[in-house]
């Protein structure tokens, strides 16, 4: 089990000279927490996650992962600890076969080939797609692509995974399967999604981003039951709650 935590203080970021998308955001994520990140369209969920893996510089404020500050020169270290699953699997997968794609990261980190093979085996096993190893990326279904994307980052054995809108374009069966896989993975998870049912099923804690800040933070159950809060930010309570 990993012992990674994350401290974010007064984080502010704008695209170019535009209005800040994140504006004085504070968040502490403790070891082995799974946190759902919700918020209206364009609230900055994706921007926030991408920033945490160093895709958006410069920002002001501080981000520390296990006491390591997020800076250009610590990127290699941080990216080894944090895996990021893109919303769009087609960007994530660029090698020819699933196995090759999963091997890409460990190879870049210079692991010997037998270790790479082991990492690939383990990662595919974790998401239950060992049978797809030699399958061509272009012959995968949407659900398989998502699991393969997850495997490509698990092969670096990260201590924390970030997922951006993981359920977009998944059918109910694949969605259930993904919930199972994510719940089996016991490291820090940050999941940005407008699919509140999915957050409900995977995250114990939920934070709501609005106006570039954390507008609400608490146990998922408490946030999701606060209909007034959700409505104020243009969100709808999860189906699983309204049905009861």
């Amino acid at each position, binding site marked *: 089990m990993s012992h990674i935590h994350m401290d974010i203080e007064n984080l502010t970021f704008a695209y170019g000279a535009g209005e800040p998308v994140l504006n004085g955001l504070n968040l502490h994520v403790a070891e082995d927490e799974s946190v759902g990140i919700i918020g209206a369209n364009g609230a900055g969920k994706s921007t926030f996650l*991408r920033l945490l*893996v160093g*895709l958006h510089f410069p920002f002001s404020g501080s981000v520390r992962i296990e006491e390591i500050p997020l800076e250009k020169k610590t990127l*290699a270290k941080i*990216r*080894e600890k944090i*895996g*990021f699953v*893109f919303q*769009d699997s*087609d*960007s*994530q997968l*660029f*090698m*020819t*076969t699933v196995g*090759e794609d999963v091997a*890409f*990261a*460990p*190879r*870049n*980190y*210079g*692991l*010997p*080939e037998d270790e*790479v093979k082991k990492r690939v085996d383990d990662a595919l096993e974790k998401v239950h797609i060992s049978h797809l190893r030699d399958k*061509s990326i*272009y012959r995968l279904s949407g659900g398989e692509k998502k699991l393969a994307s997850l495997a*490509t*980052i698990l092969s*670096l054995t990260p201590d924390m995974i970030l997922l951006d809108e993981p359920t977009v374009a998944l059918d109910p069966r694949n969605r259930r399967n993904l919930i199972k896989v994510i719940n089996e993975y016991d490291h820090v998870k940050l999941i940005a999604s407008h699919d509140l049912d999915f957050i409900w099923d995977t995250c114990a804690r939920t934070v709501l981003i609005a106006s570039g800040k954390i507008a609400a933070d608490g146990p998922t159950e408490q946030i999701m039951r606060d209909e007034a809060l959700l409505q104020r930010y243009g969100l709808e309570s999860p189906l699983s709650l309204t049905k009861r």
Partner: protein
Amino acid sequence: MSKISDAISEIQSLEALSRGPGFVNRLHPLGKLLLTVFFIAVTVSFPKYSLPGLITMAVYPAAVFLVADLSFGEALRRLRVVLPLVCVVGILNPFFDRTPVLTIGTLAVSGGVLSMVTLMVKAVLTVLAGYLLIATTPIEEICRALRLLHLPKVFTVVVLLIYRYVTVLLAEARRITQAYSLRAPGQKGVAWKAWGPLLGQMLLRSMDRAEGVYDAMLLRGFTGEFAAGREAKLRPADILWPVVWMLILLALRLFPVTSWIGNLFV
């Protein structure tokens, strides 16, 4: 549309081939790269009428096909577009150089014809050598060898990205043309009027996609350097293979081996 899928699977099978477990695949990429360059240089250096000597050069590709257990027919099929193109070089020679230089039976062969054939053989051998390198060495390994030769990082990164993007762009092209054909049933290909917007879409989407892919590569530890993962330790074969071949090729170039062999039979 299916042509695009074909192109994608073609690239994929070539890549799978390059990552094979064979002897040639496992050799250090630098040796293979230098040997390929050396082979091409020697091949090109043959004078324009020395066809017999040039043909002995074929011993190298032939040997690699055998040792690496590659299919020659497969190679010809893959190179079916390139080979005729390179064979066009020298096609005009017969018209300029009409002096007979050689007679086969009653047939007089002009210098132009001979130099044309020589050029074609050179071109085919060069293409084959390149193909053999790619079929036995993953692109990352070739880039690593280029880096070892101190080629600028910018150059190797561009080589790698182009290679990666080709499949990504082809897949994008396939999605767009599929979407098009679904809404233009019974139409063969793409109407010329739609080419403009379609290409524009393709360009925009490809740029988007290329950026996403580059980000994804960075996140997974891509730095533009290529780690020696496959075979980290240098083995004797890594040096012997290229050196022995270079000596053989040099000998074939410098000594009239074909006439010696000819003399054996007289």
